[in-house]
């Protein structure tokens, strides 16, 4: 297969598309929309997963409040003892005086009205990893070793809910993405089937004059790739624009978490992800259709 032939094969592939132009455009539009939804779903699922998986520190911390009568020495001893626990990464002490001062600076009327400091020493215990949080909280709540501990507050419940939610979103996202990829594949498959039908004379002549099987397949594979790649190009551009719009809106909400979660998508990532998906789906669709409908 020489360079001359590549031009010829591309031209024949283009003739295939032009032969049923409206069908091709409809297929292209469908592929583009499907890939766009696929890209959007995948991106959303990825973002939610990322928020939970990559910023676990805020859910890793357990608040331990000491009984009011506890002396500073006892509190420091508990802090040291907890630091020695293998499930613990760090223990930060906020003394009741510090808490009182902070409260006073934010709400002076309250501290004046209360006069005496009713607050307790607080130890913020950070778990070594997010999967250790609930185990650690359970241990802190049930231990008898440190009778000075009054109360243990953990984010266990919220983490569980969020993790579960993220998993559901991700699984639904994956299922939807998979179904959409399959739908795209079927569209390409059907388009190639139509081409094989409308070009049966050409295929017959190619066989009779001794074209090699690859020469016969090539224009059909080009056509499948064309749908996959052009569809993904259109989908990428649409998705990038849509994500930029969403991002611009969420920046105005003054919520760092939402802003981070909906950050504009990197164009290169989208082009690569959708381009590869589109190419793979187009290639697979055309190869399956050739296998099924072209007798070589």
């Amino acid at each position: 297969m020489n360079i001359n032939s590549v031009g010829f094969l591309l031209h024949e592939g283009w003739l295939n598309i032009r032969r049923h132009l409206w069908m091709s455009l409809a297929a292209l539009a469908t592929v583009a929309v499907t890939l766009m939804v696929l890209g959007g779903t995948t991106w959303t699922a990825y973002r939610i997963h990322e928020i939970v998986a990559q910023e676990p520190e805020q859910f890793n911390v357990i608040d331990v409040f000491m009984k009011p009568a506890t002396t500073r020495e006892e509190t420091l001893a508990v802090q040291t003892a907890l630091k020695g626990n293998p499930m613990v990464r760090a223990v930060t002490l906020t003394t009741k005086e510090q808490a009182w001062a902070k409260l006073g600076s934010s709400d002076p009327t309250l501290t004046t009205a209360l006069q005496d400091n009713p607050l307790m020493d607080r130890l913020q215990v950070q778990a070594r990893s997010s999967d250790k949080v609930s185990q650690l909280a359970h241990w802190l709540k049930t231990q008898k070793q440190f009778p000075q501990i009054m109360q243990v507050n953990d984010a266990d419940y919220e983490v569980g809910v969020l993790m579960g939610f993220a998993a559901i979103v991700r699984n639904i996202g994956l299922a939807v993405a998979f179904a959409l990829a399959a739908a795209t594949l079927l569209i390409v498959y059907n388009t190639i089937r139509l081409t094989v039908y409308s070009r049966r004379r050409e295929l017959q002549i190619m066989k009779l004059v001794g074209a090699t099987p690859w020469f016969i397949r090539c224009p059909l594979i080009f056509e499948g790739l064309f749908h996959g790649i052009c569809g993904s190009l259109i989908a990428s551009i649409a998705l990038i624009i849509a994500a930029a719009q969403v991002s611009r809106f969420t920046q105005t909400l003054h919520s760092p978490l939402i802003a981070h979660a909906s950050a504009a998508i990197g164009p290169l990532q989208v082009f690569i992800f959708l381009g590869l998906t589109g190419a793979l789906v187009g290639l697979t669709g055309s190869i399956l259709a050739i296998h099924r409908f072209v007798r070589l």
Partner: protein
Amino acid sequence: MTTTTASVATQPVSQRIAIALKSVSVLYPGHCQALSNVSLEIGAGEFVFIVGASGAGKSTLLKLLTHEESCTSGTIFVEGCDVSGMKVNQIPALRRRVGVVYQNFGLLPDRTVYENVAFAMRVTGAGRREVIRRLPEVLELVGLQSRPDAFPGQLSGGEQQRVAIARALVNRPSLLLADEPTGNLDPETSLGIVELLHDINATGATVLVATHDVAIVDRSARRVLEFADGVLVRDEACGRYGRGVLEDCGEAV
């Protein structure tokens, strides 16, 4: 090396074997015996008519030679290649050496005469330049040099068949197979097509014509193979369509 050269040199071109069938049978699914125990040899450069009633097995014989059908038993040699034991990836090379022409022309209706013929070159890997060089001479050979831009629908049946012949010849095959090439044509046009086939044969190509056109066979006075229900029943060096002696057989092989 020396002996090979010598043996080729001592063998006249006309006696080289182009096609050899040994005890070939074709059994289609459904127990239809299309060919039974056919053995024959055709020399390079011969012009042969294959005659017989419809369903006699003429088309099947031609399809065997391009491996469109494969035989149930026996061996087939085309230009020295064992077609019956051929691997799938060798079929394209075989078909490039064998041109085929059909009753219904098989042209692409949305391509011009030029494009129809060029198509056969391009799909076998020829470049644009080769096409530009080769096309005018092959169109002139079939007498269509003045109509390269016509579409098949704008041509008469005879002209369409000439395009099909040009397409079959464009890759310079050594063997040309024509299955009922005049089946859709009126008698006068048919004679023109047969003359063209004779001209092609005169340039050295082996030509096989399957037909049940009595007139062209009788006028041509060439070798005739007659089939009946898949059996080769007659092989005459200078025959006519039916049985009987042909007086004027001077020029035949």
